[in-house]
């Protein structure tokens, strides 16, 4: 049995009883990677030498006081999170050789918590995509079926945890990029409240929506990882000055009297019958535990995808202006002058989806169109947020599916942007409203692919989200299912 079948608390118990060493944990990761990653292709860069050295130095700290809360735990990090001295590409040719000279705040926090970074994980280029097919470097496969996508954009982060290569990973979520791949790969993925986790050192895609979050095999481990990375950061003025509670203490299993809202728009025609059925079964489990369930309406959620693509692309067009071939990254050759250098560098360095979104954003922000597209989308964003505000006046959580269908075949949607975008219809409103949401395993489809249950909470109330997710997990055995690789 893999060591990673144990949760964090048990692994740390084994470390203290000297039944295993920190080096054993790190070796377990690299052994599994060497066995399966030529098929799964979750990792872009490994950091084995440094990880093993860190393991040795942590082992000598084992008997000392003051161990970090992630002591000895192997973690994979999405490749849009900057790691000092460890190549960080955002899965783009334009950053193919980028060697960061500083750490993201979350990377610093992982280190401070005594976690060990195993390597960097594949993703859609600049986190733009829902299948990880937009990576410049590799196509990550879903460990449950190597012909299907792992989801995206944090496809490598979800696949690596599902495949047992690492027990913990970090992803980022702008419109569903943690929850959708977690759902497709049968693991637990949380998008925290906007502002809960510092974005310093997260390569920006859409700054008003991006959040870093944890991906794990179970809810308890997820709570530990969030605990380690959450909190105010002077280097990110959008990180919130809101106290970080003890998430572990929320995992009581008690949801008696909890009020659950199920939006009818999340259980409608666009969602496949087997997905709806899995949610109905999950709701029965939650009712059995003493929660009450009511149908509600999020009337503006159907406008989420359009709103999201206008806003996120507009922000991306500004954020990605910095990639110009001057100070770092790829630079095109044979440019005649500076403008030509910019244009050639960006045309050669960016993939099609990134170009498409930069152009859409540039169009939406350009003179004469700004009010019609960008400002309009910001106004609709207000309506979408108000939908959630109203429901949360009466309910503790919103529950529904994470995605309309299970994972799809590689190549099936990649040439049709709008069909691909529709995949995020149930996750996007959560980012637009800035509230936290989690995807937890909810069983398998008829074709043997994982389905996810999405639980959405109030601003900064990750504790209740975790409490419900944990109660559901403990009452079912979906999270114990593993792919055969």
């Amino acid at each position, binding site marked *: 049995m893999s060591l990673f079948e144990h949760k964090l608390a048990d692994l740390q118990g084994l470390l203290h009883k000297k039944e295993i060493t920190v080096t054993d944990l790190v070796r377990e990761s690299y052994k599994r990677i060497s066995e399966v990653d030529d098929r799964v292709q979750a990792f872009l860069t490994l950091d084995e030498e440094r990880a093993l050295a860190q393991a040795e130095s942590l082992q000598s700290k084992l008997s000392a006081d003051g161990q970090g809360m992630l002591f000895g735990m192997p973690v994979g990090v999405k490749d849009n999170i900057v790691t000092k001295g460890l190549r960080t590409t955002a899965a783009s040719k334009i950053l193919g050789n980028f060697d960061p000279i500083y750490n993201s705040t979350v990377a610093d926090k992982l280190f401070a918590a005594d976690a060990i970074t195993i390597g960097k994980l594949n993703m859609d280029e600049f986190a733009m995509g829902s299948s990880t097919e937009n990576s410049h470097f590799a196509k990550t496969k879903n460990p449950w079926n190597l012909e299907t996508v792992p989801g995206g954009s944090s496809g490598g982060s979800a696949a690596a945890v599902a495949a047992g290569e690492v027990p913990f990973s970090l992803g980022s979520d702008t419109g569903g990029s943690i929850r959708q791949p977690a759902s497709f790969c049968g693991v637990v993925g949380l998008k925290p409240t906007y502002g809960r986790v510092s974005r310093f050192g997260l390569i920006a895609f859409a700054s008003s929506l991006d959040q870093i979050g944890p991906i794990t095999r179970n809810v308890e481990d997820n709570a530990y990882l969030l605990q380690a990375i959450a909190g105010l950061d002077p280097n990110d003025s959008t990180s919130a000055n809101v106290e970080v509670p003890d998430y572990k203490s929320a995992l009581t299993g008690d949801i008696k009297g909890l009020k659950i809202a199920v939006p009818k728009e999340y259980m409608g025609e666009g969602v496949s019958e087997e997905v709806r059925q899995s949610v109905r079964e999950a709701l029965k489990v939650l009712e059995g535990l003493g929660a009450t369930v009511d149908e509600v309406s999020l009337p503006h959620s159907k406008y989420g995808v359009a709103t999201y693509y206008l806003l996120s692309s507009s922000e991306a067009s500004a954020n990605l*202006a910095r990639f110009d071939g001057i100070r770092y990254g790829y630079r095109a050759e044979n440019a005649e002058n500076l403008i030509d250098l910019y244009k050639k560098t960006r045309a050669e360095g960016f993939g099609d989806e990134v170009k498409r979104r930069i152009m859409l954003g540039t169009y939406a922000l350009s003179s004469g169109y700004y009010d019609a597209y960008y400002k309009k989308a910001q106004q609709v964003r207000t309506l979408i947020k108000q939908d959630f505000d109203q429901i949360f006046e009466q309910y503790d959580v919103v529950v529904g599916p994470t995605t309309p269908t299970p994972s799809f075949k590689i190549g099936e949607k990649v040439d049709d942007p709008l069909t691909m975008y529709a995949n995020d219809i149930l996750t996007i409103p959560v980012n637009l409203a800035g509230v936290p949401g989690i995807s937890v395993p909810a069983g398998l489809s008829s074709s043997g692919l994982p389905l996810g249950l999405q639980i959405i909470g109030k601003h900064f109330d990750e504790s209740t989200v975790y409490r419900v997710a944990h109660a559901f997990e403990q009452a079912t055995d979906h999270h114990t299912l593993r792919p055969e690789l």
Partner: protein
Amino acid sequence: MTKITTDEVKHVAHLARLSITEQEAEKFADQLGSIITFAEQLNELDTSNVEPTTHVLEMKNIMREDKSGKGLPREEVLKNAPDHQDGQVKVPTILE
């Protein structure tokens, strides 16, 4: 359906500093046209009295103390530059 012409695509590509071939301009014109058409469903909603949301949290003017900190060492900063000389980033001719 909103039509985006190849000339509009080329103009936008120029604004975004992307060089683009004729073939790409045609492909992106079709794709951007259908995305914009899709986005125009927002016009079904009357938003005349709705404030735009730029930020979901009620935060304003988060300032730090105006105190200078330590900069990054020059060698480090230049490490990722595609071309540099005498401690400075080198670019092609700007003025003819």
